[in-house]
């Protein structure tokens, strides 16, 4: 599944950049995130509970900041597993100057869901994923604009 969008954030670009590459900050906005463990500068591990319809699963997600070109572009790769399910995702963010000193974030994500969650929740996955992505950016926007 491919997703893409643009979010305007009323915060300066260096602040937005610092936020998105800090696992402890950005991680809190991930959907259902329960804990974040930083392994090194570019690797971290999250535990997140994700539910689709009547199925829910606790995922352990290994994330890697695969590319970073400060303060313009970052690519995060994620590989998560839960009993009987797995998620593999690549998300890219491109920052540019927005209106009135703000920041424009163009993002896209390629998400593959495998196993029970895909099998049993197929009809609900896209809607749920869209909702989760929306929640993630709403959270980032709220924290950065606070």
């Amino acid at each position: 599944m491919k997703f893409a969008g643009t979010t305007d954030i009323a915060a300066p670009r260096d602040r937005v950049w610092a936020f998105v590459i800090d696992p402890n900050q950005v991680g809190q906005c991930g959907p259902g995130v329960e804990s974040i463990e930083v392994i090194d500068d570019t690797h971290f591990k999250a535990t997140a509970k994700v539910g689709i319809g009547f199925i829910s699963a606790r995922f352990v997600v290994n994330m890697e900041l695969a590319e970073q070109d400060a303060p313009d572009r970052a690519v995060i790769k994620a590989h998560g597993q839960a009993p009987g399910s797995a998620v593999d995702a690549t998300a890219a963010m491109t920052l540019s100057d927005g209106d009135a000193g703000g920041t424009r974030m163009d993002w896209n994500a390629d998400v593959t869901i495998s196993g029970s969650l895909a099998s049993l929740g197929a009809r609900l996955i896209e809607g749920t994923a869209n909702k989760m992505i929306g929640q993630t950016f709403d959270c980032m926007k709220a924290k950065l604009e606070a």
Partner: protein
Amino acid sequence: MTEILQTSPEIGGMGHSVKRKEDPRFIRGKGEYIDDLTLPGMLWLDIVRSPYAHATIKGIDASEALKIPGVAAVVTGKDLEGYKLHWMPTLAGDMQMVLPTDTVMYQSQEVAAVIATSRYAAADGVAAVLVDYEPLPVVVDPHKSLEKDAPVLRPDRGEDKKTNHIWHWESGDKAAADAALEASDVRVAEDIYIPRIHVASIETCGCIADWDPVRQQLTLHMTSQAPHAIRTVLALVAAGAGLPISEQNIRVKTHDIGGGFGGKVPVYPGYVLAVAASFLIGKPVKWIEDRSENLQADSFARDYHIHAEIGATREGRIQALKVKTIADHGYSDAAADPSKFPAGLFNVITGSYDFDKAFVEVDGVYTNKPPGGVAYRCSFRVTEAVHAIERMVDILAHDVGKDPAQLRLENFIKPDQFPYKTPTGWEYDSGDYGRALHKALDLIGYADLRKEQAEKRARGELMGIGISSFTEIVGAGPSHDFDILGLKMFDSCEIRVHPTGKVLARIGVQTQGQGHETTFAQIIAQELGFPVADIKIEYGDTDTAPYGLGTYASRSTPVAGAATAVAARKIRDKARKLAAHLLEASEEDLEWTPGEFHVKGSPDRKKTIQEIAFAAYTNHPAGMEAGLEAVDYYDPPNLTFPFGSYICVVDIDKGTGEVKVRRFVAVDDCGNIINPMIVDGQIHGGLTMGLAPALYEQITYDENGNNLTGTFMDYLLPTAVETPAWELEKTVTPSPHHPIGAKGVGESATVGAPPAIANAVVDALWHLGVRNIDIPITPPKVWAILHEKGIA
């Protein structure tokens, strides 16, 4: 075939609708299914399954699982590798993983087994096993699987087989078929996909493996259609692994079975895991699938991508048929077809029609899906064949502007052509196809329906009439051609008559609801005159039942039923000698009527079969062995060819695209009938299982190989609400080579129904330019067509 004498209702031989002996326990909830059974000290096994359709296993961490109270062990492919048990042979002679050591090949494949003291602890253990996967490219489409750059899915097959192509099989004369097509006035070609479906039996698969290390005895309680074959496969696998489990110490025991339909023929990894776990731990181990495991991981059926071309004269006289098919087998060919027939009996595709020339070819292909495919209530790919030919004949009729019933009648093999040799090599035993179709046309009021259709079409209403005049091929099979893993496809019966005139008979086939306890007793009642109530039928315990290849492909009555009749006749031959001794007459002077021998011309000088049975143990003549028993291993001289004509009327909702089956007439001919009530029941069930793939069922995958139909929310089965009132009729054309003239009926309706329904839907839409709709014909598919045509 010999003449079938009429028996009294008390005896209850052939033709009597004797109530089923098995029903009292079922309707009282006293059936005993595998999951009802609990053995002392029993452990439970549950399976960790792959979320990926294709991935490398980088590691398996069971440490957290082993901390869960009750979890006794976690078994991985590496553990099994030590015993060479990580791969096992399939019934088709391919190899299948029990547990993978490095690569998973389909979503929901077995990855590890957790053994625990309760079902719950086992499930908790499964959730706690951490498997590190690295995803690999997934091949879902069998056409893409054959492309040059497709990843090779089975490198284990060796350097010389670096392709996903499994086998090529062909039948008929290609050059002759090509020439005949070339010379035809009219050529009709179509792509027809018969989708992957699942047998979805109410009871899922499972077993209890019970290894007794002291007695060196393995008892395997299981839900299987072929217990003897399972015993032999286990013995061979154990021998290969160097385990001290030999065939005389293996007892496979089935219990009541909640539906088989072909899905309980194969050997699944779960069985081997339970046996291995019991062997390692020395306690009984139970494995029962849940519904999603059953739908996602067990053998599927169908999945044939067919391209068919038919040639005919301008008047619609059929001349040639050419068929090219791709068979999607998943990652392993785990079909249960006879060895010489990798595409089953698919070359029966010339159907009920007098084709001059035909050529059929099939290529088996690997994909990242579960292995299969089983014969789902059809005798080895006959459903696929019948659907294709019945669709093609219908398209031809519409193309040449002829009524589909008329075109069929003009092209049927005629009664005086039997035994009839098909251009693909089969010899049909008997048939009267015109009689069956005429009966169906009369019963449904065909001419009036066509008038109604014309009127409705003029008003813009969508109504269609579909016909299917199928020929089945069942009763595998003659030993010169038919074997599974080398085991010839004979079947057996052993009959013992007790001194008090009661009978115990054991058969090599296995009932899964067909009513064998009743119908096999009726065969013996027919042949020997014992009342059906005095005859007990046993099966499914390999320690006691004679060897048999099991129940599938409608082979019980054609093969084991014949063995039963022949064994009974051996007993009757001895009974005649005993009667001659008792009546002080010569054997030639005795005449048999069901239940007694009497002296010709003096009906009062007689001995009943019960008196004769008593004498066999109390007063047998000098020089004759005591007792009254016989056994027969029957090797059928040919297959049997049941047939029928079905007509279906559908109305289509223009707003929603929903197809409603208004009427469905089924005229079946299964030869001589043992129990008319049971035959009707078989046809009712079969028709419903034919309605299902026509309108509802399909296993689908997303592009990553995720099974999207893993529950009954997405895998739709018809209920009583969707099922029309079936209208049944029969004709009787006995099989000339079968001892009681029977042909088998378990699958006719499942085979014959889908094309009747599909033909009716296309018939309703033909005037809009619709030539074919692949099953299942769902409302979205029909709505999309109506929408495109500007109607919906």
